[in-house]
């Protein structure tokens, strides 16, 4: 499929074209509505675009979010990322499993002329991790967040794998090998990463009792929080896969997602034991401490390799940020040293 925005895309502002096509989507798929308003782009991500607009109905405006592939181009789901249609299917399954997610209102069809993607509810709240861990608005709810994250993860892991779209299956050993290949592709020696890989190889957990649907990027920064309710939505399902559910419980504890609150392992706001208790109480499999620790070390190493992998993108473009992110790989080295070599 060619660029959905069509040949006129360069001549007219993109927002005008999007607004016009969203108007048609409203007409065709939201029959009670009278159109759309206030179409604005929220992000300019490399893998997706996010637009916010208002659906107008009886003089009232309902905010909605459009997630679509960049420029409306069809994106082939890579081996690591699920496609946008699959992400919409996962959101629907998550809602059914009673995990808090934005409600999917419409999955784009070719006739919509907007490319690949979907329209979902706008969920009001805060996503910036630094504010969640420090802002006084969250002081009252903060002590409850770790347990709540455990409960939500239990709900996500209840999603029936056989109802989900086809997702890659990844065992712990396969994931370690996959990230070792990424590290080795950087062709830059990192003795601390080597220590971490050796440790992971020596501490591979037994296969889970049952492989589960793993969110893959469940962390402070991908969650929407409200001051009274705590977590109100889980976002960014593009790294979902089938595997060991403990991976999600380890990843949210990696130090970069603590936003400076090193002594609050869960997202910078809570304790591991509270998250595990919430997870088990909500029906999750019993949490083994060593097993959870494996995934925490894995998470730290994974983020380190991701940072180190920014070098080619930095050299290919003009983004200073990518170069600075590459220099953050050493942050994960100190985190790994604290985890594996003594104090911490």
């Amino acid at each position, binding site marked *: 499929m060619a660029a959905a925005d069509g040949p006129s895309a360069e001549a007219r502002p993109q927002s005008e074209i999007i607004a016009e096509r969203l108007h048609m989507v409203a007409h065709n798929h939201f029959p009670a509505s009278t159109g759309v308003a206030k179409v604005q782009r929220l992000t300019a991500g490399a893998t997706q675009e996010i637009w916010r607009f208002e659906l107008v109905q009886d003089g009232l405006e309902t905010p909605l979010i459009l997630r679509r592939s960049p420029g409306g181009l069809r994106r082939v789901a890579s081996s690591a990322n699920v496609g946008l249609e699959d992400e919409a299917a996962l959101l629907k399954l998550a809602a059914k499993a009673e995990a808090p997610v934005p409600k999917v209102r419409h999955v784009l069809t070719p006739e919509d002329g907007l490319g690949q993607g979907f329209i979902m509810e706008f969920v009001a709240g805060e996503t910036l991790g630094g504010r969640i861990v420090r802002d006084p608005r969250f002081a009252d709810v903060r002590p409850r967040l770790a347990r709540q994250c455990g409960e939500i993860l239990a709900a996500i892991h209840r999603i029936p794998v056989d109802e989900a779209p086809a997702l890659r299956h990844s065992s712990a050993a396969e994931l370690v090998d996959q990230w070792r290949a990424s590290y080795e592709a950087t062709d830059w*020696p990192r003795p601390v990463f080597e220590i971490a890989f050796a440790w992971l190889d020596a501490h591979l957990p037994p296969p889970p009792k049952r492989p589960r649907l793993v969110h893959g990027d469940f962390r402070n920064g991908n969650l929407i929080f409200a001051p009274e309710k705590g977590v109100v939505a889980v976002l960014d399902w593009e790294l979902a896969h089938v595997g060991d559910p403990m991976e999600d419980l380890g990843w949210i504890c990696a130090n970069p997602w603590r936003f400076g609150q090193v002594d609050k392992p869960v997202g910078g706001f809570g304790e591991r034991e509270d998250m595990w208790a919430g997870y088990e109480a909500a029906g999750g499999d019993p949490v083994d401490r060593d097993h959870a620790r494996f995934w925490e070390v894995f998470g730290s190493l994974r983020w380190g390799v991701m940072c180190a992998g920014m070098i080619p993108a930095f050299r290919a473009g003009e983004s200073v940020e990518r170069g600075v992110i590459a220099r953050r790989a050493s*942050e994960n080295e*100190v985190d790994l040293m*604290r985890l594996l070599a003594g104090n*911490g």
Partner: protein
Amino acid sequence: MQDEPRPDEILATVANFLKGTATRETGPHIAFQLRVAANAVEICQRQLTLSPKADAEELARLRALLGMDGDLMTLNRELARRIKAGQVTLDTPGLADHLWATTLAKLAVDQPNYSGYRAALAERGQV
């Protein structure tokens, strides 16, 4: 001999300009990028100042640890190879101390305000 000011002085001034005047005179999107740019300049400034000594110390430790000579890249590749092959582990005398010293020296350049670095310094009684 190059004249004054020194490169580290120039970079410090550029970083201050980016964080100060330039940020005040611009919009929020560019302001974020200016902060990132200032951060990048400060990394270079710290590297110029700190790396000569840190690199020399790292090289001396690697030579002693590996019992061979070579430049930093060669010796780090060899250390990585030996760890991967299981010939060297955290129980090998000197390795943990070497990795700690090297890692802390890297962080002093890359991100001296990183929470994990501050915590490690405190835990090791270095602050």
